[in-house]
Protein backbone atom coordinates (compact mmCIF):
# COMPACT_ATOMS: atom_id res chain seq x y z
CA UNK A 1 0.00 0.00 0.00
CA UNK A 2 1.87 3.01 -1.10
CA UNK A 3 2.28 5.43 -3.88
CA UNK A 4 0.66 3.18 -6.46
CA UNK A 5 -2.46 2.70 -4.39
CA UNK A 6 -3.07 6.44 -4.22
CA UNK A 7 -2.47 6.86 -7.91
CA UNK A 8 -4.80 4.02 -8.74
CA UNK A 9 -7.47 5.68 -6.62
CA UNK A 10 -6.83 8.99 -8.31
CA UNK A 11 -7.41 7.35 -11.67
CA UNK A 12 -10.50 5.55 -10.54
CA UNK A 13 -9.01 2.07 -10.81
CA UNK A 14 -10.41 -0.18 -8.14
CA UNK A 15 -8.38 -2.76 -6.26
CA UNK A 16 -10.49 -5.39 -7.97
CA UNK A 17 -9.67 -4.08 -11.42
CA UNK A 18 -6.03 -3.92 -10.51
CA UNK A 19 -5.98 -7.57 -9.46
CA UNK A 20 -7.92 -8.53 -12.56
CA UNK A 21 -5.22 -6.84 -14.58
CA UNK A 22 -2.53 -8.73 -12.71
CA UNK A 23 -4.27 -12.01 -13.52
CA UNK A 24 -4.44 -11.10 -17.21
CA UNK A 25 -0.77 -10.24 -17.12
CA UNK A 26 0.08 -13.63 -15.67
CA UNK A 27 -1.66 -15.09 -18.71
CA UNK A 28 0.38 -13.00 -21.13
CA UNK A 29 3.51 -14.18 -19.36
CA UNK A 30 2.31 -17.77 -19.58
CA UNK A 31 2.35 -18.08 -15.80
CA UNK A 32 -0.32 -19.71 -13.69
CA UNK A 33 -3.02 -17.33 -12.40
CA UNK A 34 -1.73 -18.16 -8.95
CA UNK A 35 1.02 -15.69 -9.70
CA UNK A 36 -1.45 -12.77 -9.77
CA UNK A 37 -0.97 -11.73 -6.12
CA UNK A 38 2.79 -11.93 -6.52
CA UNK A 39 2.54 -9.77 -9.62
CA UNK A 40 0.43 -7.23 -7.73
CA UNK A 41 3.06 -7.18 -5.01
CA UNK A 42 5.86 -6.71 -7.51
CA UNK A 43 4.10 -3.82 -9.18
CA UNK A 44 3.27 -2.17 -5.88
CA UNK A 45 6.77 -2.47 -4.61
CA UNK A 46 8.42 0.92 -4.49
CA UNK A 47 11.78 -0.41 -5.58
CA UNK A 48 10.86 -0.40 -9.21
CA UNK A 49 13.85 0.59 -11.31
CA UNK A 50 13.57 3.84 -13.24
CA UNK A 51 13.28 3.70 -17.01
CA UNK A 52 15.09 5.78 -19.58
CA UNK A 53 13.38 5.73 -22.96
CA UNK A 54 15.64 6.67 -25.86
CA UNK A 55 14.44 7.49 -29.34
CA UNK A 56 16.63 7.38 -32.42
CA UNK A 57 15.73 6.72 -36.07
CA UNK A 58 12.09 5.91 -35.48
CA UNK A 59 8.54 7.03 -36.17
CA UNK A 60 7.55 7.21 -32.49
CA UNK A 61 5.14 4.37 -33.19
CA UNK A 62 6.22 2.51 -30.09
CA UNK A 63 5.76 5.60 -27.94
CA UNK A 64 2.36 5.89 -29.54
CA UNK A 65 1.69 2.28 -28.66
CA UNK A 66 2.73 3.01 -25.09
CA UNK A 67 0.42 6.01 -24.88
CA UNK A 68 -2.40 3.98 -26.36
CA UNK A 69 -2.31 1.70 -23.38
CA UNK A 70 -5.69 3.36 -23.28
CA UNK A 71 -7.86 4.60 -20.45
CA UNK A 72 -5.85 5.20 -17.35
CA UNK A 73 -4.96 1.55 -17.41
CA UNK A 74 -2.60 0.00 -14.98
CA UNK A 75 -0.23 -0.70 -17.85
CA UNK A 76 0.06 2.98 -18.53
CA UNK A 77 0.59 3.68 -14.84
CA UNK A 78 3.19 1.00 -14.45
CA UNK A 79 5.17 2.10 -17.46
CA UNK A 80 4.62 5.78 -17.64
CA UNK A 81 3.57 7.69 -14.55
CA UNK A 82 5.48 5.60 -12.13
CA UNK A 83 8.86 4.90 -13.48
CA UNK A 84 9.76 6.53 -16.76
CA UNK A 85 12.32 9.18 -15.90
CA UNK A 86 13.22 10.24 -19.39
CA UNK A 87 11.12 9.99 -22.51
CA UNK A 88 11.68 12.56 -25.21
CA UNK A 89 8.18 12.50 -26.60
CA UNK A 90 6.19 12.65 -23.41
CA UNK A 91 8.35 14.25 -20.69
CA UNK A 92 7.68 17.75 -19.48
CA UNK A 93 11.30 18.87 -19.34
CA UNK A 94 13.03 20.13 -22.45
CA UNK A 95 16.50 20.99 -23.74
CA UNK A 96 19.48 20.92 -21.41
CA UNK A 97 17.22 20.39 -18.45
CA UNK A 98 16.07 17.10 -19.92
CA UNK A 99 19.59 15.99 -20.76
CA UNK A 100 20.67 16.80 -17.23
CA UNK A 101 17.81 14.73 -15.81
CA UNK A 102 18.89 11.77 -17.91
CA UNK A 103 22.52 12.10 -16.88
CA UNK A 104 21.47 12.21 -13.27
CA UNK A 105 19.47 9.02 -13.54
CA UNK A 106 22.35 7.28 -15.29
CA UNK A 107 24.71 8.25 -12.48
CA UNK A 108 22.39 7.73 -9.56
CA UNK A 109 20.95 4.37 -10.65
CA UNK A 110 23.99 2.98 -12.43
CA UNK A 111 23.38 -0.67 -13.39
CA UNK A 112 19.91 -0.49 -11.85
CA UNK A 113 17.71 1.35 -14.34
CA UNK A 114 16.10 -0.11 -17.44
CA UNK A 115 16.97 1.38 -20.80
CA UNK A 116 14.28 1.20 -23.48
CA UNK A 117 15.39 2.01 -27.00
CA UNK A 118 13.12 2.90 -29.86
CA UNK A 119 14.47 3.30 -33.37
CA UNK A 120 17.60 2.14 -35.14
CA UNK A 121 21.03 3.63 -34.72
CA UNK A 122 22.79 5.16 -37.75
CA UNK A 123 26.48 4.39 -37.93
CA UNK A 124 27.48 5.76 -41.34
CA UNK A 125 29.54 8.98 -41.37
CA UNK A 126 30.22 8.84 -37.63
CA UNK A 127 26.53 8.62 -36.85
CA UNK A 128 25.72 12.19 -37.82
CA UNK A 129 22.30 11.20 -39.16
CA UNK A 130 20.82 11.17 -35.70
CA UNK A 131 22.11 13.57 -33.06
CA UNK A 132 20.46 14.68 -29.84
CA UNK A 133 21.84 17.61 -27.86
CA UNK A 134 24.92 17.55 -30.09
CA UNK A 135 25.71 13.89 -29.39
CA UNK A 136 25.32 11.04 -31.82
CA UNK A 137 22.87 8.22 -31.23
CA UNK A 138 25.69 5.67 -31.00
CA UNK A 139 27.36 7.73 -28.33
CA UNK A 140 24.21 8.18 -26.24
CA UNK A 141 23.24 4.53 -26.54
CA UNK A 142 26.68 3.34 -25.51
CA UNK A 143 26.58 5.47 -22.40
CA UNK A 144 22.96 5.06 -21.35
CA UNK A 145 22.54 1.47 -22.55
CA UNK A 146 25.95 0.42 -21.34
CA UNK A 147 25.18 1.44 -17.75
CA UNK A 148 21.68 0.02 -17.60
CA UNK A 149 20.64 -3.17 -15.82
CA UNK A 150 19.45 -4.39 -19.20
CA UNK A 151 18.20 -2.92 -22.42
CA UNK A 152 14.83 -3.43 -24.08
CA UNK A 153 14.78 -2.74 -27.80
CA UNK A 154 11.18 -1.90 -28.67
CA UNK A 155 9.91 -2.04 -32.22
CA UNK A 156 11.48 -3.63 -35.27
CA UNK A 157 13.87 -0.71 -35.90
CA UNK A 158 15.56 -1.01 -32.52
CA UNK A 159 15.44 -4.81 -32.59
CA UNK A 160 16.73 -5.44 -36.12
CA UNK A 161 17.30 -2.09 -37.81
CA UNK A 162 13.82 -2.10 -39.33
CA UNK A 163 12.92 0.32 -42.08
CA UNK A 164 16.06 2.48 -41.84
CA UNK A 165 18.22 -0.63 -42.23
CA UNK A 166 16.26 -1.96 -45.20
CA UNK A 167 18.12 -2.12 -48.49
CA UNK A 168 20.05 0.05 -49.39
CA UNK A 169 20.39 1.33 -45.81
CA UNK A 170 21.83 4.78 -46.57
CA UNK A 171 22.49 5.71 -42.93
CA UNK A 172 24.19 2.45 -42.00
CA UNK A 173 21.41 1.80 -39.51
CA UNK A 174 22.05 -0.91 -36.94
CA UNK A 175 20.10 -2.63 -34.22
CA UNK A 176 20.65 -2.05 -30.52
CA UNK A 177 22.27 -5.46 -30.07
CA UNK A 178 24.76 -4.73 -32.84
CA UNK A 179 25.90 -1.64 -30.92
CA UNK A 180 25.78 -3.11 -27.43
CA UNK A 181 27.33 -6.47 -28.24
CA UNK A 182 27.74 -7.99 -24.80
CA UNK A 183 24.88 -6.29 -22.97
CA UNK A 184 21.65 -8.14 -22.16
CA UNK A 185 19.26 -6.91 -24.81
CA UNK A 186 15.65 -8.00 -25.02
CA UNK A 187 14.03 -7.47 -28.40
CA UNK A 188 10.35 -6.62 -28.60
CA UNK A 189 9.98 -6.27 -32.35
CA UNK A 190 6.79 -5.33 -34.11
CA UNK A 191 5.65 -2.30 -36.00
CA UNK A 192 4.98 -1.06 -33.39
CA UNK A 193 5.65 -3.31 -30.40
CA UNK A 194 2.64 -4.36 -28.43
CA UNK A 195 2.58 -2.48 -25.15
CA UNK A 196 1.21 -5.51 -23.30
CA UNK A 197 4.41 -7.37 -24.10
CA UNK A 198 6.49 -4.48 -22.79
CA UNK A 199 4.54 -4.35 -19.52
CA UNK A 200 4.82 -8.09 -19.20
CA UNK A 201 8.59 -8.02 -19.79
CA UNK A 202 9.10 -5.32 -17.18
CA UNK A 203 6.84 -7.10 -14.71
CA UNK A 204 8.67 -10.37 -15.31
CA UNK A 205 11.85 -8.58 -14.33
CA UNK A 206 10.23 -7.11 -11.22
CA UNK A 207 8.86 -10.50 -10.29
CA UNK A 208 11.87 -12.74 -10.89
CA UNK A 209 14.73 -10.25 -11.05
CA UNK A 210 15.67 -11.66 -14.45
CA UNK A 211 14.65 -11.12 -18.04
CA UNK A 212 12.19 -13.67 -19.47
CA UNK A 213 13.38 -16.66 -21.51
CA UNK A 214 14.44 -15.50 -24.96
CA UNK A 215 14.50 -17.16 -28.36
CA UNK A 216 17.46 -17.03 -30.75
CA UNK A 217 16.44 -13.59 -31.97
CA UNK A 218 16.38 -12.40 -28.34
CA UNK A 219 12.60 -12.15 -28.27
CA UNK A 220 10.76 -13.24 -25.11
CA UNK A 221 9.34 -16.69 -25.72
CA UNK A 222 6.11 -15.89 -23.95
CA UNK A 223 5.28 -13.37 -26.67
CA UNK A 224 7.11 -14.66 -29.73
CA UNK A 225 7.10 -18.39 -29.12
CA UNK A 226 4.31 -19.26 -31.52
CA UNK A 227 3.42 -18.41 -35.06
CA UNK A 228 0.58 -16.04 -35.89
CA UNK A 229 -0.70 -18.75 -38.23
CA UNK A 230 -1.02 -21.33 -35.46
CA UNK A 231 -3.28 -19.14 -33.35
CA UNK A 232 -5.12 -17.33 -36.09
CA UNK A 233 -8.91 -17.36 -36.02
CA UNK A 234 -8.94 -17.84 -39.80
CA UNK A 235 -6.88 -21.02 -39.48
CA UNK A 236 -9.89 -23.30 -39.87
CA UNK A 237 -10.51 -21.77 -43.28
CA UNK A 238 -6.87 -22.34 -44.17
CA UNK A 239 -7.11 -26.03 -43.35
CA UNK A 240 -10.39 -26.29 -45.19
CA UNK A 241 -8.87 -24.75 -48.30
CA UNK A 242 -11.11 -21.71 -48.21
CA UNK A 243 -9.14 -18.71 -49.40
CA UNK A 244 -9.75 -15.09 -50.22
CA UNK A 245 -8.90 -14.70 -53.92
CA UNK A 246 -9.54 -10.99 -54.31
CA UNK A 247 -10.01 -8.14 -51.87
CA UNK A 248 -13.67 -7.75 -51.16
CA UNK A 249 -14.77 -11.02 -52.78
CA UNK A 250 -17.26 -13.39 -51.24
CA UNK A 251 -14.55 -15.21 -49.29
CA UNK A 252 -13.19 -11.98 -47.89
CA UNK A 253 -16.61 -11.03 -46.64
CA UNK A 254 -16.94 -14.48 -45.09
CA UNK A 255 -13.70 -14.07 -43.18
CA UNK A 256 -11.77 -16.77 -45.05
CA UNK A 257 -8.02 -17.25 -44.87
CA UNK A 258 -5.78 -14.54 -46.37
CA UNK A 259 -2.95 -16.90 -47.33
CA UNK A 260 -3.32 -16.33 -51.06
CA UNK A 261 -3.36 -12.58 -50.51
CA UNK A 262 0.17 -12.86 -49.18
CA UNK A 263 -0.53 -13.23 -45.46
CA UNK A 264 2.80 -13.79 -43.67
CA UNK A 265 1.20 -15.38 -40.63
CA UNK A 266 2.82 -18.74 -41.40
CA UNK A 267 6.29 -17.25 -41.10
CA UNK A 268 5.79 -14.78 -38.30
CA UNK A 269 6.23 -15.41 -34.59
CA UNK A 270 4.12 -13.12 -32.46
CA UNK A 271 1.21 -13.25 -30.05
CA UNK A 272 -0.96 -10.81 -32.03
CA UNK A 273 -3.90 -13.23 -32.33
CA UNK A 274 -4.07 -13.85 -28.60
CA UNK A 275 -3.05 -10.54 -27.02
CA UNK A 276 -4.35 -8.40 -29.89
CA UNK A 277 -4.36 -4.63 -29.99
CA UNK A 278 -6.38 -1.72 -28.65
CA UNK A 279 -7.27 -3.48 -25.45
CA UNK A 280 -7.72 -6.83 -27.10
CA UNK A 281 -10.26 -5.45 -29.53
CA UNK A 282 -8.80 -6.60 -32.83
CA UNK A 283 -5.62 -7.20 -34.83
CA UNK A 284 -4.70 -6.88 -38.51
CA UNK A 285 -5.78 -10.32 -39.73
CA UNK A 286 -9.03 -10.08 -37.79
CA UNK A 287 -9.62 -6.72 -39.49
CA UNK A 288 -9.21 -8.39 -42.89
CA UNK A 289 -5.65 -7.59 -43.89
CA UNK A 290 -2.96 -10.24 -44.14
CA UNK A 291 -0.09 -10.25 -41.67
CA UNK A 292 2.98 -8.48 -43.10
CA UNK A 293 5.46 -10.18 -40.78
CA UNK A 294 6.54 -6.95 -39.10
CA UNK A 295 8.20 -8.62 -36.13
CA UNK A 296 10.60 -10.80 -38.12
CA UNK A 297 14.23 -9.77 -38.66
CA UNK A 298 14.72 -7.91 -41.92
CA UNK A 299 11.05 -8.02 -42.78
CA UNK A 300 11.20 -5.10 -45.18
CA UNK A 301 13.62 -7.04 -47.32
CA UNK A 302 12.33 -10.58 -46.96
CA UNK A 303 8.58 -10.30 -46.35
CA UNK A 304 7.91 -8.19 -49.41
CA UNK A 305 6.01 -8.17 -51.71
CA UNK A 306 3.36 -7.88 -49.05
CA UNK A 307 0.60 -9.30 -51.24
CA UNK A 308 2.50 -12.32 -52.56
CA UNK A 309 3.46 -15.60 -50.97
CA UNK A 310 7.17 -15.61 -51.76
CA UNK A 311 9.76 -12.91 -52.34
CA UNK A 312 10.59 -11.65 -55.81
CA UNK A 313 13.99 -12.64 -57.09
CA UNK A 314 16.39 -9.76 -57.42
CA UNK A 315 18.40 -9.72 -60.63
CA UNK A 316 15.72 -11.48 -62.67
CA UNK A 317 13.72 -8.46 -63.73
CA UNK A 318 11.12 -6.59 -61.78
CA UNK A 319 8.59 -9.25 -60.96
CA UNK A 320 10.21 -12.62 -61.47
CA UNK A 321 8.64 -15.02 -59.02
CA UNK A 322 9.85 -18.44 -57.98
CA UNK A 323 7.11 -20.06 -60.04
CA UNK A 324 8.17 -18.24 -63.21
CA UNK A 325 11.83 -19.10 -62.76
CA UNK A 326 10.98 -22.68 -61.83
CA UNK A 327 8.76 -23.30 -64.84
CA UNK A 328 11.45 -21.74 -67.03
CA UNK A 329 14.00 -24.21 -65.68
CA UNK A 330 11.66 -27.14 -66.34
CA UNK A 331 10.75 -25.76 -69.77
CA UNK A 332 14.38 -25.32 -70.79
CA UNK A 333 15.32 -28.83 -69.73
CA UNK A 334 12.33 -30.24 -71.62
CA UNK A 335 13.39 -28.36 -74.76
CA UNK A 336 17.06 -29.29 -74.43
CA UNK A 337 16.36 -33.00 -74.01
CA UNK A 338 13.63 -32.97 -76.60
CA UNK A 339 16.01 -31.53 -79.18
CA UNK A 340 18.70 -33.97 -78.10
CA UNK A 341 16.22 -36.79 -78.62
CA UNK A 342 15.25 -35.65 -82.10
CA UNK A 343 18.85 -35.25 -83.20
CA UNK A 344 19.73 -38.68 -81.78
CA UNK A 345 16.80 -40.30 -83.54
CA UNK A 346 17.84 -38.78 -86.87
CA UNK A 347 21.44 -39.87 -86.41
CA UNK A 348 20.33 -43.36 -85.48
CA UNK A 349 18.41 -43.95 -88.66
CA UNK A 350 21.69 -44.25 -90.54
CA UNK A 351 23.15 -46.42 -87.82
CA UNK A 352 20.27 -48.90 -87.88
CA UNK A 353 20.51 -49.20 -91.62
CA UNK A 354 24.25 -49.81 -91.39
CA UNK A 355 23.85 -52.56 -88.79
CA UNK A 356 21.10 -54.21 -90.82
CA UNK A 357 23.20 -54.10 -93.98
CA UNK A 358 26.17 -55.66 -92.18
CA UNK A 359 23.87 -58.34 -90.82
CA UNK A 360 22.59 -59.13 -94.29
CA UNK A 361 26.11 -59.18 -95.70
CA UNK A 362 27.12 -61.75 -93.12
CA UNK A 363 24.19 -64.03 -93.90
Amino acid at each position, binding site marked *: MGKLDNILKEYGVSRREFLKYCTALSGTLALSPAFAPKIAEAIEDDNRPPVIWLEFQDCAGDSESLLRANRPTVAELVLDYLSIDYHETIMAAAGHQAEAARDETVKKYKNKYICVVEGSIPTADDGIYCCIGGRSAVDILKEVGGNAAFVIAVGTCAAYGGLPAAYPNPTGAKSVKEILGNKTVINLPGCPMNVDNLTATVVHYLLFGAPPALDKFLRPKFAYGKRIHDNCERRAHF*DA*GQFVEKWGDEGHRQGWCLYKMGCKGPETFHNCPTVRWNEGLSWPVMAGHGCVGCSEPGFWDT*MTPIYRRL*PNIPGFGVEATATK*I*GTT*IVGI*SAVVFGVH*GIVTAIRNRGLVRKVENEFEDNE
Partner: protein
Amino acid sequence: MKNNDNIKCAAKRYIYVWEAPVRISHWLNFLCIITLSITGYYIHNPFIHASDIIETTYIMGMMRYLHYLVGVIFAFSVMLRLFWLFVGNRYASWHSFSNPFRKEDRKTFFAYIKYYTFLEKNPPHTLGHNPVALVAYIVLFNLFILQIITGFALWAQADPNSTLYALTSWVFSIASNQWVRFFHYLMMFLIAGFVINHLYSAILFDFKTQSGEISSIFSGWKPERNS
Protein backbone atom coordinates in the same frame (compact mmCIF):
# COMPACT_ATOMS: atom_id res chain seq x y z
CA MET B 1 34.86 -56.00 -52.38
CA LYS B 2 32.23 -58.48 -51.44
CA ASN B 3 32.33 -61.73 -53.26
CA ASN B 4 28.83 -61.43 -54.62
CA ASP B 5 30.02 -58.51 -56.73
CA ASN B 6 29.97 -60.50 -59.86
CA ILE B 7 27.22 -63.00 -59.35
CA LYS B 8 26.46 -64.24 -62.82
CA CYS B 9 23.33 -65.78 -64.10
CA ALA B 10 25.05 -68.58 -65.96
CA ALA B 11 22.48 -69.13 -68.66
CA LYS B 12 22.04 -65.56 -69.74
CA ARG B 13 25.38 -64.03 -68.73
CA TYR B 14 23.75 -61.32 -66.69
CA ILE B 15 25.33 -59.43 -63.80
CA TYR B 16 23.53 -58.43 -60.65
CA VAL B 17 24.16 -54.66 -60.59
CA TRP B 18 21.44 -52.96 -58.55
CA GLU B 19 20.87 -54.53 -55.17
CA ALA B 20 17.41 -54.53 -53.59
CA PRO B 21 17.93 -51.52 -51.27
CA VAL B 22 19.11 -49.46 -54.23
CA ARG B 23 16.04 -50.35 -56.23
CA ILE B 24 13.69 -49.87 -53.27
CA SER B 25 15.18 -46.48 -52.53
CA HIS B 26 14.96 -45.56 -56.21
CA TRP B 27 11.27 -46.32 -56.49
CA LEU B 28 10.46 -44.86 -53.09
CA ASN B 29 12.20 -41.66 -54.15
CA PHE B 30 10.20 -41.69 -57.34
CA LEU B 31 6.85 -42.02 -55.57
CA CYS B 32 7.82 -39.56 -52.85
CA ILE B 33 9.03 -36.91 -55.29
CA ILE B 34 5.78 -37.09 -57.23
CA THR B 35 3.64 -36.84 -54.10
CA LEU B 36 5.80 -34.18 -52.50
CA SER B 37 5.80 -32.06 -55.65
CA ILE B 38 2.05 -32.15 -56.04
CA THR B 39 1.24 -31.56 -52.38
CA GLY B 40 4.05 -28.99 -52.13
CA TYR B 41 2.77 -27.09 -55.10
CA TYR B 42 -0.68 -27.17 -53.61
CA ILE B 43 0.63 -25.76 -50.35
CA HIS B 44 2.31 -22.96 -52.26
CA ASN B 45 -0.69 -22.29 -54.43
CA PRO B 46 -3.91 -23.89 -53.18
CA PHE B 47 -5.58 -24.18 -56.56
CA ILE B 48 -8.55 -26.27 -55.48
CA HIS B 49 -11.12 -24.39 -53.51
CA ALA B 50 -12.79 -26.52 -50.89
CA SER B 51 -16.15 -24.97 -51.60
CA ASP B 52 -15.79 -25.89 -55.25
CA ILE B 53 -16.19 -29.50 -54.26
CA ILE B 54 -17.70 -29.86 -50.86
CA GLU B 55 -18.02 -27.37 -48.06
CA THR B 56 -16.33 -29.24 -45.26
CA THR B 57 -13.33 -30.80 -46.99
CA TYR B 58 -10.20 -30.61 -44.91
CA ILE B 59 -8.22 -30.15 -48.05
CA MET B 60 -5.24 -27.99 -47.13
CA GLY B 61 -4.88 -29.89 -43.87
CA MET B 62 -4.84 -33.15 -45.82
CA MET B 63 -2.27 -31.90 -48.31
CA ARG B 64 -0.02 -30.74 -45.51
CA TYR B 65 -0.43 -33.98 -43.64
CA LEU B 66 0.49 -35.96 -46.74
CA HIS B 67 3.41 -33.68 -47.43
CA TYR B 68 4.84 -34.22 -43.94
CA LEU B 69 4.21 -37.96 -43.91
CA VAL B 70 5.75 -38.52 -47.33
CA GLY B 71 8.56 -36.16 -46.38
CA VAL B 72 9.49 -38.50 -43.53
CA ILE B 73 9.38 -41.53 -45.84
CA PHE B 74 11.51 -39.68 -48.36
CA ALA B 75 14.07 -38.79 -45.71
CA PHE B 76 14.37 -42.49 -44.76
CA SER B 77 14.65 -43.51 -48.38
CA VAL B 78 17.43 -41.02 -49.04
CA MET B 79 19.20 -42.14 -45.87
CA LEU B 80 18.95 -45.74 -46.98
CA ARG B 81 20.59 -44.92 -50.29
CA LEU B 82 23.32 -42.87 -48.63
CA PHE B 83 23.97 -45.74 -46.23
CA TRP B 84 24.28 -48.05 -49.21
CA LEU B 85 27.08 -45.85 -50.52
CA PHE B 86 29.16 -47.42 -47.79
CA VAL B 87 27.92 -50.99 -47.63
CA GLY B 88 26.64 -51.62 -51.14
CA ASN B 89 28.30 -53.46 -53.99
CA ARG B 90 30.81 -51.79 -56.25
CA TYR B 91 28.14 -50.22 -58.49
CA ALA B 92 26.31 -48.62 -55.60
CA SER B 93 29.34 -47.70 -53.57
CA TRP B 94 31.03 -44.34 -53.37
CA HIS B 95 34.02 -46.13 -54.88
CA SER B 96 32.28 -45.77 -58.22
CA PHE B 97 32.64 -41.98 -58.13
CA SER B 98 35.08 -40.92 -60.78
CA ASN B 99 38.30 -39.56 -59.43
CA PRO B 100 39.20 -36.31 -61.20
CA PHE B 101 42.87 -37.02 -60.47
CA ARG B 102 42.91 -40.28 -62.43
CA LYS B 103 43.59 -40.03 -66.12
CA GLU B 104 41.46 -43.05 -66.94
CA ASP B 105 38.41 -41.58 -65.17
CA ARG B 106 38.85 -38.25 -66.82
CA LYS B 107 38.96 -39.92 -70.20
CA THR B 108 35.68 -41.78 -69.70
CA PHE B 109 34.06 -38.66 -68.31
CA PHE B 110 34.95 -36.56 -71.34
CA ALA B 111 34.01 -39.36 -73.70
CA TYR B 112 30.49 -39.17 -72.25
CA ILE B 113 30.41 -35.39 -72.44
CA LYS B 114 31.37 -35.70 -76.11
CA TYR B 115 28.67 -38.27 -76.64
CA TYR B 116 26.02 -36.05 -75.08
CA THR B 117 27.06 -33.11 -77.22
CA PHE B 118 27.06 -35.17 -80.44
CA LEU B 119 30.83 -34.97 -80.81
CA GLU B 120 31.17 -38.72 -80.63
CA LYS B 121 28.86 -41.43 -81.86
CA ASN B 122 29.18 -44.29 -79.44
CA PRO B 123 29.41 -43.91 -75.70
CA PRO B 124 31.91 -46.10 -73.86
CA HIS B 125 30.23 -48.89 -71.98
CA THR B 126 29.85 -48.78 -68.20
CA LEU B 127 27.94 -51.27 -66.14
CA GLY B 128 27.08 -49.03 -63.20
CA HIS B 129 26.40 -45.33 -63.54
CA ASN B 130 27.98 -43.48 -66.37
CA PRO B 131 30.30 -40.81 -64.95
CA VAL B 132 28.36 -37.79 -66.23
CA ALA B 133 25.12 -39.14 -64.87
CA LEU B 134 26.91 -39.82 -61.62
CA VAL B 135 27.78 -36.14 -61.26
CA ALA B 136 24.12 -35.32 -61.85
CA TYR B 137 23.16 -37.81 -59.13
CA ILE B 138 25.61 -36.31 -56.68
CA VAL B 139 24.14 -32.86 -57.32
CA LEU B 140 20.66 -34.34 -57.09
CA PHE B 141 21.28 -36.00 -53.73
CA ASN B 142 22.64 -32.75 -52.41
CA LEU B 143 19.39 -31.13 -53.49
CA PHE B 144 17.51 -33.92 -51.72
CA ILE B 145 19.44 -33.30 -48.54
CA LEU B 146 18.80 -29.56 -48.76
CA GLN B 147 15.11 -30.22 -49.38
CA ILE B 148 14.92 -32.52 -46.38
CA ILE B 149 16.74 -30.12 -44.06
CA THR B 150 14.77 -27.05 -45.13
CA GLY B 151 11.55 -29.04 -45.11
CA PHE B 152 12.02 -30.31 -41.58
CA ALA B 153 13.16 -26.87 -40.43
CA LEU B 154 9.97 -25.29 -41.78
CA TRP B 155 7.88 -28.00 -40.25
CA ALA B 156 9.59 -27.59 -36.87
CA GLN B 157 8.51 -23.97 -36.69
CA ALA B 158 5.09 -25.10 -35.64
CA ASP B 159 6.63 -25.77 -32.26
CA PRO B 160 9.80 -23.88 -31.34
CA ASN B 161 10.08 -25.95 -28.17
CA SER B 162 10.37 -29.23 -30.02
CA THR B 163 13.48 -31.33 -30.45
CA LEU B 164 13.08 -31.04 -34.19
CA TYR B 165 13.30 -27.27 -33.89
CA ALA B 166 16.38 -27.53 -31.71
CA LEU B 167 17.96 -29.70 -34.41
CA THR B 168 17.04 -27.56 -37.38
CA SER B 169 16.70 -23.95 -36.25
CA TRP B 170 20.28 -23.16 -37.29
CA VAL B 171 18.89 -23.02 -40.82
CA PHE B 172 17.21 -19.73 -39.99
CA SER B 173 20.47 -18.13 -38.97
CA ILE B 174 21.64 -18.62 -42.54
CA ALA B 175 18.53 -17.43 -44.33
CA SER B 176 15.31 -15.90 -43.10
CA ASN B 177 12.22 -18.00 -42.86
CA GLN B 178 10.82 -16.51 -46.03
CA TRP B 179 13.92 -17.27 -48.12
CA VAL B 180 14.05 -20.81 -46.77
CA ARG B 181 10.50 -21.28 -48.04
CA PHE B 182 11.53 -19.77 -51.32
CA PHE B 183 14.48 -22.13 -51.82
CA HIS B 184 12.48 -25.14 -50.69
CA TYR B 185 9.96 -24.29 -53.38
CA LEU B 186 12.47 -23.44 -56.10
CA MET B 187 14.43 -26.66 -55.55
CA MET B 188 11.31 -28.61 -56.48
CA PHE B 189 11.62 -27.22 -59.99
CA LEU B 190 15.31 -28.10 -60.18
CA ILE B 191 14.40 -31.66 -59.22
CA ALA B 192 11.59 -31.69 -61.80
CA GLY B 193 14.12 -30.56 -64.42
CA PHE B 194 16.33 -33.47 -63.39
CA VAL B 195 13.43 -35.93 -63.69
CA ILE B 196 12.96 -34.95 -67.34
CA ASN B 197 16.68 -35.40 -67.98
CA HIS B 198 16.73 -38.69 -66.10
CA LEU B 199 13.81 -40.22 -67.98
CA TYR B 200 15.20 -39.13 -71.30
CA SER B 201 18.72 -40.36 -70.58
CA ALA B 202 17.47 -43.73 -69.36
CA ILE B 203 15.48 -44.24 -72.55
CA LEU B 204 18.35 -42.96 -74.68
CA PHE B 205 20.88 -45.35 -73.16
CA ASP B 206 18.55 -48.29 -73.12
CA PHE B 207 17.99 -47.70 -76.79
CA LYS B 208 21.60 -46.92 -77.61
CA THR B 209 23.49 -49.55 -75.65
CA GLN B 210 20.91 -52.28 -75.12
CA SER B 211 22.31 -52.65 -71.65
CA GLY B 212 18.98 -52.86 -69.87
CA GLU B 213 19.13 -49.39 -68.34
CA ILE B 214 15.42 -49.44 -67.68
CA SER B 215 14.72 -53.09 -66.93
CA SER B 216 17.67 -53.28 -64.54
CA ILE B 217 16.12 -50.81 -62.10
CA PHE B 218 13.22 -53.24 -61.78
CA SER B 219 15.17 -56.50 -61.82
CA GLY B 220 18.67 -55.51 -60.77
CA TRP B 221 20.33 -57.48 -63.59
CA LYS B 222 22.27 -56.07 -66.50
CA PRO B 223 23.71 -57.98 -69.46
CA GLU B 224 27.41 -58.59 -69.18
CA ARG B 225 29.57 -56.80 -71.71
CA ASN B 226 33.21 -57.09 -72.43
CA SER B 227 33.72 -54.07 -74.62
